[in-house]
């Protein structure tokens, strides 16, 4: 399958890339890892006049803690998350997520920024970033703009990014002590989108009660979903079996999946409930028993 013709641009700087987007406001797309965009163009589910490849702009691939945030360069590849000791030990929710996105070959090209900017609620990072209360940094002609993750997803394949903006960084608050996270995904096979999946990030207070919690659901509606009722319920409670059961019941009830070959609405809601409960249990365990660094 061959995409319809388009023009390809490979700018060397962000300014040049933004200029190209401004010159073609109606028919330009940013090409990051291309692992969602190219299949879409090949299947001719979409077409584009101009592809602006940000792959040759230096300084967009990084993972570092700085100024109270984990900063992920917009063009950082999923495989970089999988291979990072910092991510494995301190951001297990991100580590869990990266390991189940598409397949290992796709993850060598697919990028974290692309996973979000594509605006697909079936992608895995949106739920993760909701749970992590991330911020998205967009760079455009006017400079840099920081967007809360809760304002970022605006509809199916629609985000808060303007047509002349590029997602340049994702910021995740550095977690306090006694924080754990987990991502649980049900998929029919490697590479398929989630039948249901749940991302949980929580911090326990000194007594062991839930001080704060973020819960995101994948493929549970037209936009990535925050399970607000479940979060509100769980905050301030002991994460015992009863509380986990009720929080996950609320998360399952919040899911608004559509029926497809992966299952019925009822089945997917039930799976969202089950996976949310499991993710909470793992997150609590990780909050109490931090993941150890590999000995050298």
């Amino acid at each position: 399958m061959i995409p319809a013709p388009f023009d390809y641009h490979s700018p060397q700087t962000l300014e040049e890339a933004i200029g190209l987007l401004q010159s073609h406001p109606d028919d330009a797309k940013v090409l990051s890892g291309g692992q969602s965009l190219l299949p879409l163009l090949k299947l001719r589910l979409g077409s584009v006049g101009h592809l602006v490849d940000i792959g040759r702009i230096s300084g967009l691939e990084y993972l570092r803690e700085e100024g109270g945030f984990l900063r992920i360069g917009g063009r950082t590849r999923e495989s970089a998350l999988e291979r990072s000791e910092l991510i494995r030990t301190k951001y297990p929710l991100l580590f869990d997520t990266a390991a189940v996105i598409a397949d290992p070959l796709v993850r060598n090209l697919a990028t974290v920024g692309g996973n979000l900017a594509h605006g697909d609620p079936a992608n895995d990072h949106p739920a993760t970033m909701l749970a992590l209360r991330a911020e998205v940094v967009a760079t455009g002609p006017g400079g840099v703009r920081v967007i809360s993750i809760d304002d970022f997803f605006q509809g199916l394949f629609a985000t808060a990014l303007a047509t002349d903006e590029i997602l340049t960084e994702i910021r995740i608050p550095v977690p306090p002590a006694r924080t754990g996270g987990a991502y649980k995904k049900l998929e029919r096979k490697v590479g398929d989108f989630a039948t249901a999946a749940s991302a949980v990030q929580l911090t326990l207070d000194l007594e062991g009660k839930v001080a704060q919690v973020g819960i995101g659901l994948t493929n549970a509606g037209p936009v990535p979903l925050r399970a607000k009722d479940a979060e509100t319920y769980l905050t301030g409670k002991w994460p015992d079996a009863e509380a986990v059961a009720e929080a996950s019941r609320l998360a399952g009830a919040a899911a608004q999946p559509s029926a497809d070959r992966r299952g019925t609405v009822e089945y997917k809601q039930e799976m969202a409930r089950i996976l949310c409960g499991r993710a909470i249990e793992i997150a609590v365990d990780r909050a109490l028993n931090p993941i150890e660094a590999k000995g050298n």
Partner: protein
Amino acid sequence: MAQHDITIKVNGAEKSASVESRLLLVHFLRETLAMTGTHIGCDTTHCGACTVLLDGEPVKSCTVLTVQADGHAVTTVEGLEQGGKLHPIQNGFWQEHGLQCGFCTPGMLMTGYALLARNPAPSEEEIREAISGNLCRCTGYVNIIKSVQHAAAALEEERQASTEAA
């Protein structure tokens, strides 16, 4: 510009051409360069028959534009054999009957090769994970795993022999 002059280092040799923006890397390899070792299976980023190494990392060449690879290095299955001698990963597939119809084999070889370059002694689980983006329509996975293990052992022997020689 819809047409671009590109140069890609393919199996160590620089190949230049003028290509359309939309030309996929797999088509550049198979049609422009007439290197048909790399296969097109599903053409939808699922099966991994088109796997090649891009700067050493295995990727699906049906989901890369040729223009994206401009200035980069690509290794295909044709690049594994050296001086008439099969690479240990190829020999492993031969010895352990790692192929039935052979359609997925170029992709399996490239993924296996890249895995062993990064992780010389992978566990069975790590091999399974590494090839999870490569489909074998004959479902011959058990022997594919044995083939990669065979290659890992052969490469380890080579390394020990070269250490002893030095």
